[in-house]
């Protein structure tokens, strides 16, 4: 390999590493300040937050049907489990049969307190980010939550927080829960505008 080739390889690898780092991060609310129109800024903030909301760590437990999915490819959960009457699994096969309070490395099974699926009306799989946004704001479909409570849920809920500490070889959601919280707070402050369908 010539010196020129070596430098080219360094440049390519450095660029790839920088690209990966950007992919893992979330932009800060301040980085959207150049967008003059408030509604446009609000929409852009939500699109950035949507990188988390539409990540497999979130979508897998916000399924459209009665079964959660798993993995980066969102394949059906194995073994077969169903949401049951309370979104916590079937009678005698609740989520906590396998999912304990913490990730368990020896078996690779993820865990967090209050492990459960999102209610059916909060299904996100198969929906556009605009549809998810409208759904999040709709108190008939969000558990009657105010926007303040939505922020609290996304910024501080412990089960949501698992998305950034999923254990095993599962890919964490982008950024951090605090960064998501900051984006959602800024989205609400700017009018909670939804992306245009």
């Amino acid at each position, binding site marked *: 390999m010539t010196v020129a080739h070596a430098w080219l390889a360094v440049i390519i690898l450095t660029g790839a590493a920088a690209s990966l780092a950007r992919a893992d991060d979330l932009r800060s609310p301040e980085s959207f300040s150049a967008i003059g129109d408030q509604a446009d800024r609000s929409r852009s903030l939500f699109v950035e937050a949507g990188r988390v909301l539409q990540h497999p760590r979130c979508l897998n437990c916000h399924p459209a049907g009665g079964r959660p999915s798993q993995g980066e490819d969102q394949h059906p959960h*194995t*073994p*077969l*489990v*169903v949401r*049951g009457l309370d979104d916590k699994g*079937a*009678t*005698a*096969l*609740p989520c*906590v*049969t*396998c999912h*304990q*309070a*913490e990730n*368990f*490395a*020896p*078996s*690779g*099974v993820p865990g967090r307190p209050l492990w459960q699926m999102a209610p059916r009306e909060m299904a996100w799989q198969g929906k556009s980010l605009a549809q998810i946004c409208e759904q999040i704001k709709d108190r008939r479909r969000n558990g009657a939550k105010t926007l303040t409570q939505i922020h609290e849920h996304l910024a501080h809920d412990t089960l949501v927080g698992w998305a950034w500490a999923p254990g095993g070889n599962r890919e964490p959601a982008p950024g951090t829960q605090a960064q998501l919280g900051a984006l959602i707070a800024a989205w609400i402050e700017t009018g909670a505008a939804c992306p245009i369908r």
Partner: protein
Amino acid sequence: MSITLNVNGTRREFHGDPDTPLLWVIREELGLTGTKYGCGIAQCGACTVHVDSVPLRSCSAPVAAMTGRAIITIEGLASRVAKAVQRAWVDLDVVQCGYCQSGQIMSAVALLEKKLKVSDEDIDHALAGNICRCATYQRIRAAIHLASERLASKEGA
């Protein structure tokens, strides 16, 4: 680290790594080998026990999380429902090789203790995580229905 356990109503002490899967404490330390190792990744159900009356895959729970909780293994099943399930299992000759059956029975008992009158769908959903390589699923389902009927008619053991 010393951990106090309540297994089948008896106080037991475990000295060792708190991250040890409960399964290995039950089998290797306490000698209760009715609970089986199948896959080690919560996919087969052979290691099912009850913890505070809820079925739990003992391969996927650290022993440290069991402090203050009531663990029941296949050896400790003694309720009216459990006896009815065991009797139905024998009467219908459910078992083939038998390796998975303690897990199957633990899940079946958990189901009937929560819901006495069950449909095929209830059974399928409750035992979906219990794999039987001999494919005794039809007999398992029939035995659960039989136990349910006997319990409902007060014929249960």
